[in-house]
């Protein structure tokens, strides 16, 4: 198989601003970013609460959330499909095969990632952070916010990991997005489709974008950590 020609074609598609290609990239970035932005506050708050508050059933909750990390995304897609399909309990919302449905799916997939990473970061935080804030007169919410600020690199890592998981996700996207060109077709579903058709150029171009995103996210995270006075 000739790899050079499709790779050159891929660069051409990327740098000539091919509208179909950039629409796919936009769909991926839009759905992933909105999903993370919507779910992050709840997931981070829950991660903090599980780490700091001891309540009956806490251990079971931790095990459940950790278990959800390895939950197949296609099963998330299947469950949401059944909920959102016309005959499903949420069918009246008419969300199936829309970007909104994909955002819901991504929120479900990212949720345990953000909770578990935040939980781990807060558990690893020095207990004196919260105590010091409280002793200096901070109310509980401010002390919680102060703790999250002190472990902000861990919290940011959770956000980037959640983003990384959903931006490269295929199963759920196909199940509830439908891979509709110009509407719900995103980077991973487009790669799968183009490859199955033997159209490697677009698949390679989109693969480059995914790799660039992964590298970019890691670079930003490393840069921020370096700037954080972690000496």
């Amino acid at each position, binding site marked *: 198989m000739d790899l050079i020609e499709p790779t050159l074609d891929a660069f051409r598609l990327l740098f000539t601003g091919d509208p179909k290609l950039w629409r796919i990239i936009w769909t991926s970035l839009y759905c992933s970013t909105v999903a993370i932005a919507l779910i992050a506050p709840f997931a981070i708050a829950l991660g903090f609460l599980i780490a700091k508050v001891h309540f009956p059933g806490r251990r079971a909750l931790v095990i459940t959330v950790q278990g959800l990390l390895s939950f197949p995304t296609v099963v998330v897609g299947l469950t949401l499909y059944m909920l959102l399909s016309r005959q499903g309990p949420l069918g009246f919302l008419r969300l199936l095969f829309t970007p909104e449905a994909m955002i819901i799916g991504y929120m479900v997939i990212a949720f345990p990632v953000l909770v578990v990473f935040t939980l781990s970061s807060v558990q690893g935080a020095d207990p004196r*952070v919260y105590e*010091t804030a409280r002793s*200096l007169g901070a109310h509980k919410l401010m002390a919680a916010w*102060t703790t999250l600020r002190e472990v902000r690199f861990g919290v940011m890592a959770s956000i980037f990991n959640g983003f990384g998981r959903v931006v490269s996700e295929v199963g759920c996207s196909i199940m509830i997005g439908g891979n509709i060109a110009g509407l719900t077709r995103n980077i991973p579903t487009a790669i799968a489709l183009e490859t199955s058709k033997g159209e490697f150029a677009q698949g390679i171009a989109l693969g480059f974008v995914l790799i660039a995103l992964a590298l970019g996210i890691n670079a930003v995270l490393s840069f921020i950590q370096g700037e954080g006075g972690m*000496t």
Partner: protein
Amino acid sequence: MSGHLVRIDGVSKRFGERVVLSAVAARFLSGESYVLTGDNGSGKSTLMRILAGLDPAESGTLEMDGRTADLASYPEWLRGEIVYVHQHPYLFDTSIAENIGFGLRARGMEAAERRRIVAEALEWAGLGHIARVRPSKLSGGEKQRVAMARAKVLHPRLFLLDEPTANLDRDGRHRVLDLIHDLGQGENCVVVACHDQELIQLPFMRQFRLDSGHLASVPRPGAKPVSADRTLA
């Protein structure tokens, strides 16, 4: 003349079967400094943490300004009146100036006023030259002084300092001792838990000793007469 500032009564705490504090009672007077001694594990830090609202007591009350607080369910109003400084103070990962201004910000003080007070506190603690430095660059003595300045700006009625001179070199210890002396000058009161003999022997310090869960005042020849209640246990 010293006046009655804080009175604690019936403070008890146990960890499992082990009784750490048994109906501890004491009275602390304003303008006085106290040193709390006792063997390792005698409950010094536990008592301080209970008074600061960081751990709940099993039972016990604290009376201040005619108000009585149940130490088993620490009330929020007391947090503004008592500030606790850890043995190894935690400084937030921001500048020294922002660390000192943290409690003021928590109280909603406006930025300009906060900056003025922080500048004074930096001067007081001899830290003016490192106001913008990150905590990770500071020595143990400097961190302790930052924590004391951070507590001082809040004007609490009661300062609780846990082993403030532990692991400090001679110079660092003397600077911290000077600040402790200064903290106890106003209408407030300082309670220091420590093993540091130099600190214990300071003429302005009155001594309590925790032993087997009971708190007792320790008279010292030539020292000021102890003006706090003996244990009621």
